[in-house]
């Protein structure tokens, strides 16, 4: 038996090769391991390199464009010169509006699921809705926003239609983050409050939410970043090439950073001439979005440590 197996590679069953075979077998197995570990390490490195490349590309091309005028002036000369101020404001309004809508709804949903609901069919259906909503393509959100908000609710192409569409898209993000936050609150907190005679709602309102609040807000920032970076959902619902005026009502059209980049890069009058503007806008967008993400990641890890200690 052993002789037969020894001749070829060792199997998991017969894992005791004879004394002679041991060194070469072991060496080969170690070599295989070294090779694959190198491969794993390389793939992690490739991801980092990809991020670095994109970051370097945007920063090295974009930084020379950034100036106070670029950030504070509207575009001029058919968008071939000037700044991006209306797009910054537009993106701010859109993402802030989206979070103002998604945060209360998302937090309430998460509270129901984590604090009230019992395991069962209802919870499964709700979770099914969230998981699938998270998987809906962003362009389909755009179609939905166009058909429902712009046309049926008669908002037209407007700030509010864009904010509502983005709110639908960020809802799963907010719910997920809030659920994590609520789960991180130790059950002993709840039990102590209930034992003191507080009702369930008093416990949630006075104990659970305040404890989880920093992490919930972190989730809100993540949602904000997600909403700010999206293009497809606002293409038909809120964004326009160019508007010289800032939105004065929620029914106005707006400019937005991601859409501005897309238009300049693909449909502008002179694509090559506006390259610097594209890079500058991309840099502002990346700093905004990645900055918010980084901030959220750092705050979250601090909070976790604090809650533990």
């Amino acid at each position, binding site marked *: 038996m052993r002789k037969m197996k020894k001749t070829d590679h060792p199997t998991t069953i017969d*894992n005791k090769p004879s004394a002679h075979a041991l060194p070469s077998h072991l060496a080969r*197995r*170690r070599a295989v*391991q070294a090779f694959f*570990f190198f491969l*794993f*390490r390389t*793939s*992690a490195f490739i*991801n*980092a390199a*990809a*991020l670095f*490349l*994109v970051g370097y*590309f*945007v920063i090295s091309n974009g930084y020379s464009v950034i100036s106070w005028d670029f950030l504070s002036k509207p575009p001029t000369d058919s968008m071939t010169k000037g700044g991006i101020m209306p797009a910054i404001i537009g993106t701010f309004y859109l993402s802030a509006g989206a979070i103002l809508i998604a945060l209360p*709804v998302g937090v*309430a*949903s998460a509270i*129901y699921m984590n604090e*009230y609901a019992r395991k069962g069919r209802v919870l499964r*259906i*709700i979770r099914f*809705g969230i*998981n699938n*909503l998270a*998987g*809906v*393509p*962003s*362009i*389909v*959100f755009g*179609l*939905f926003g166009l058909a*429902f908000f712009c*046309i*049926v609710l008669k908002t037209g192409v407007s700030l509010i239609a864009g904010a509502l569409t983005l709110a639908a898209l960020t*809802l*799963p993000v907010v*719910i997920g983050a809030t659920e994590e936050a609520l789960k991180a609150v130790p059950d002993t907190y709840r039990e102590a409050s209930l034992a003191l005679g507080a009702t369930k*709602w008093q416990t949630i309102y006075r104990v659970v939410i305040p404890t989880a609040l920093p992490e919930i807000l972190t989730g809100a920032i993540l949602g904000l970043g*997600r909403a700010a*970076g*999206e*293009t497809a959902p606002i*293409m*038909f619902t809120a964004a326009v090439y160019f508007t010289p005026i800032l939105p004065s009502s929620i029914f106005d059209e707006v400019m937005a950073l991601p859409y501005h*980049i*897309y238009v300049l*890069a*693909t449909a502008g009058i002179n694509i090559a001439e506006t*390259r610097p503007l594209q890079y500058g806008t*991309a840099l502002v*967008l990346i700093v905004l*979005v990645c900055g918010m*993400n*980084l901030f959220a*990641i750092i705050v979250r890890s601090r909070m976790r440590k604090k809650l533990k200690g």
Partner: protein
Amino acid sequence: MQQSGRQLSEVSIKTVFFIIALASITTLLLISLFLFLEGLPVLKSVSLKQFIFGNLWYPTDEPPLFGAFPLIVASGCVTALSALFSVPLGIMTAIYIAEIANKKVAEIVKPTVETLASLPSVVVGLFGMVVVAPFLQRVFNIPVGLNLFNASLMLGFMAVPTICSISEDAINSVPDSLREASLALGATRFETIVKIVLPAGASGIATAVILGMSRAIGETMVVLMVAGGAAIVPYSIFDPVRPMPATIAAEMAEAPFRSEHYHALFAIGIVLFVFTFIFNLTADVLATRFKKKQLGG
């Protein structure tokens, strides 16, 4: 009396939360409702078979032709090709983070991957247009750099974070006792990973792969900017293509309200929605099975 009033308000608070918690599923239902309301009228101008298997997409011709086959094939090709990059890369990175890297390195690699996920797609599209396209043209000596291959490459990197983080969760949830048993029998760490950890986490990793592909097929800006935009069935990986999301995004602005073209674009939205829905449903089933297995074993 006071007690019952308190109970009543507790019950009504719970009801309010329950109603709000239905927002997600309601939104999902509204999305499908409006897609079908605006998309199904396309069947007045073409049959279902013509729409799905028709080879010619000339929506502005007279009479217009709505054969979405090249668009569906393009989406399929782009997604499949991108999976060739993203699946090995995502899973191997997950293995590295979960099994090999020491804590300090892992704490750097993980946020890096998370940041990769947060890159706005329009910026990735710009990168593909300006950097990758000319690079591909030079290296492969091809006439256009905006093509299926370029789009797949960009999409691949956008799907990696999804695949990586979900696979990592799956790997981490494999109990240590299994690893220890394998190592104690004399297996190397690599053998333990391949023969014990990966099979034990297989359905979790499969979930990761499917969700990553779902992300890739629905991604819009990248395929809009770098796929080339030709509505043809590709013969080579360097052919320009026009996947479904790109078609909707590019043409909706010029499609007159409730015209045949407008309805046809919503119908493409239905096809796309159905694709991602099936992906997500499969992922859901696999994830549930994985959880059950974890609890049972």
